[in-house]
């Protein structure tokens, strides 16, 4: 188990800087998920922590020891790759034992650890097979097995579930979570799938274009997104965004948007002029809410437990509602719905969140 400290970390290829001035503390024993759109640098960051990619600026420290110049094998970490990267010419047993043998461990200890890992992951009957004789889920288990036999201080996962089908992904997600609960080792997990991020993480790091947009628990990211990017990235179905103008009133702002009647949001920390207001689809209540509006349904997505309604407001903007109602809806139907002003997220013209005074500042 180990904590990790990244200070002012930068990475550039030739003259092209893909990451700069990145600071991040990873606590001992936490499950940290790096999430972001493709090309945001999350895999690069993971590979820099692993030692597979050199950093061009700053320092990476594992347990207060700077590891910038330490090769990957000396960092006492394990990594699970997206493609599993099992050695095709070795049996599962040899795949698991390979790293241990390189550590000059005794045969008995190697056998003990391999058997133990095989038992934990329920791959005992696969030990003599070659990787090509395994299904995707089995390969995934072996890849995880290869990581845990080394009993590392730190686990790194690079989109480990993205090659699996939907059902298996859910199953492996649960297994990974229980493995984490059992081992309690620090884990850093890269994914572009926000469901994986939300369900497994102790904390989530949202990255975009090589910079950290927000770090926080899943709840913090969902209920208090630090900026428009995080608000739009976290949460499915996607949050509704509307441009609006605001004017200062006592204890808050008066908002006028073409979509809605004017309303006031109180208890804000600061006042702003141009704002973007965001409302989660589930905060729009059919037939309820203090700020009401009517709209015409343009698309109905029936998902079984819930229904997503895409509707067109009189202003021409579209809005997304999530309802669990069992009623039937049809295209062209007019609905009226509303929201409470306390459910509105306000962002200033830079896209930064305007917090409420009653919110506790989070770390």
């Amino acid at each position, binding site marked *: 188990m180990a904590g990790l400290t990244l200070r002012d970390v930068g990475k550039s290829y030739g003259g092209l800087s893909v990451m700069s001035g990145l600071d991040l503390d990873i606590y001992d024993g936490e499950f940290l998920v790096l999430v972001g759109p493709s090309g945001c640098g999350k895999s690069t960051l993971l590979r820099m922590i*692993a*030692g*597979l990619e050199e950093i061009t600026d700053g320092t990476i420290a594992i347990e207060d020891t700077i590891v910038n110049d330490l*090769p*990957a*094998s000396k960092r006492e*970490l*394990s*990594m699970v*790759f*997206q*493609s599993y*990267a*099992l*050695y*095709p*010419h070795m049996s599962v047993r040899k795949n698991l034992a*390979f*790293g241990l043998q*390189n*550590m000059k461990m005794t045969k008995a200890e190697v056998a003990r650890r391999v058997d133990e890992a095989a038992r934990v992951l329920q791959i005992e009957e696969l030990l003599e097979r070659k990787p*090509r004789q395994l299904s995707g889920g089995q390969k995934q288990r072996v890849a995880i097995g*290869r990581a845990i036999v*080394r009993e590392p201080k730190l686990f790194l996962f690079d989109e480990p579930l993205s090659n699996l089908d939907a059902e298996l992904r859910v199953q492996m997600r649960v297994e990974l979570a229980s493995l984490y609960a059992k081992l309690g080792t620090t884990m850093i997990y890269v994914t572009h799938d926000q469901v994986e991020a939300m369900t497994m993480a102790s904390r989530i790091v949202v990255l975009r274009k090589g910079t950290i947009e927000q770090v926080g628990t899943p709840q913090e990211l969902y209920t208090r997104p630090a900026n428009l990017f995080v608000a739009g990235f976290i949460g499915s179905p996607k949050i509704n965004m509307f441009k609006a103008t605001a004017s200062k009133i006592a204890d808050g702002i008066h908002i006028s948007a073409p979509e809605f009647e004017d309303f006031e949001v109180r208890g804000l920390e600061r006042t702003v002029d141009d704002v973007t207001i965001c409302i989660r689809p589930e905060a729009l209540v059919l037939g309820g809410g203090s700020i009401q509006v009517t709209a015409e349904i343009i698309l109905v997505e029936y998902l079984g437990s819930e229904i997503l309604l895409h509707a067109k407001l009189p202003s021409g903007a579209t809005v997304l509602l999530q309802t669990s109602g069992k009623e039937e809806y049809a295209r062209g139907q007019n609905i009226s719905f509303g929201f409470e002003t306390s459910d509105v997220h306000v962002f200033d013209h830079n896209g930064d969140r305007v917090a409420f005074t009653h919110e506790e500042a989070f770390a």
Partner: protein
Amino acid sequence: MKTNVTDMTVRDKNAQIAHEIRLGQKKRARRARIYKHIFLIGMSIVMLYPLFWLFASSLKPENEIFSTLTLWPSEFNWNNYTEGWNALPKSFTVFYMNSAIVTVLSVIGNLLSCSFAAYAFARLQFNGKNLFFALMMMTLMIPYHVVLIPQYVLFLNLGWVDTYLPLVVPRFLASDAFFIFLMVQFFRQLPRELDEAAMIDGCSPYKIYWAIILPLSLPAMGTAAIFSLIWVWEDFLAPLIYLNDIKSYTVPLALRLFLDQEGQSIFGQMFAMSVLSLVPVIVFFIAFQKLIVRGIATSGMK
């Protein structure tokens, strides 16, 4: 009722037309197949004729070889094989041993050194990598005959002439750019994540080469081994230049001795020994071809 009958006849007619079209297609397909086979068989005969001629001549009596056009010998002269084996001052057992030593060492040298160099080009980062790679590729374009004399002078000064060293040592120094290129191409398509997984598993670059890259490159190694063996086994020029003592002659050099002896050539025996000299190459090719096929079948990563 009437309409039904018309329907039937129309349908029958359509069916008949379709049937005729299908029949025509089948006929044309068969005719095309026949032409194809005639062409292929014809080409095969043209390609194989010299081999047939060689084999036939190795069995013919001496006076028949160049005088008749027929391939079939009037009598089967198997003596050419038994007598040819011992017809020269040294037996062919010696020449085969010599060839085997040179070939085996050369193949091993080529495989080890070329794969080592290829690994560096394919996987490692070092200054001037592209320049060195380009230089190496340029050596492919230099004809052997251009470097022949400087090389001879070099080996003469080293005192290596009339030993196997000039034939074998360069192969251990990755002198054959063709094999390096072949292996670089193969190594490049092995997933880099395997190297990275091995790195995290505590492997040095040497260990990655030895434990991961080499075992996964059997197809490329098999191909290189086949070409290397054929080229070295059949090589005439280099042994001719560097080997003077008949005791150290390789098989191709020995075959030439049949033509020189006192102005009188023994063609039947020479052809018989030539046929035998092909045997190891063919055996090796068949053996390693299996390896190539198996290698390709087992290297599926995903």
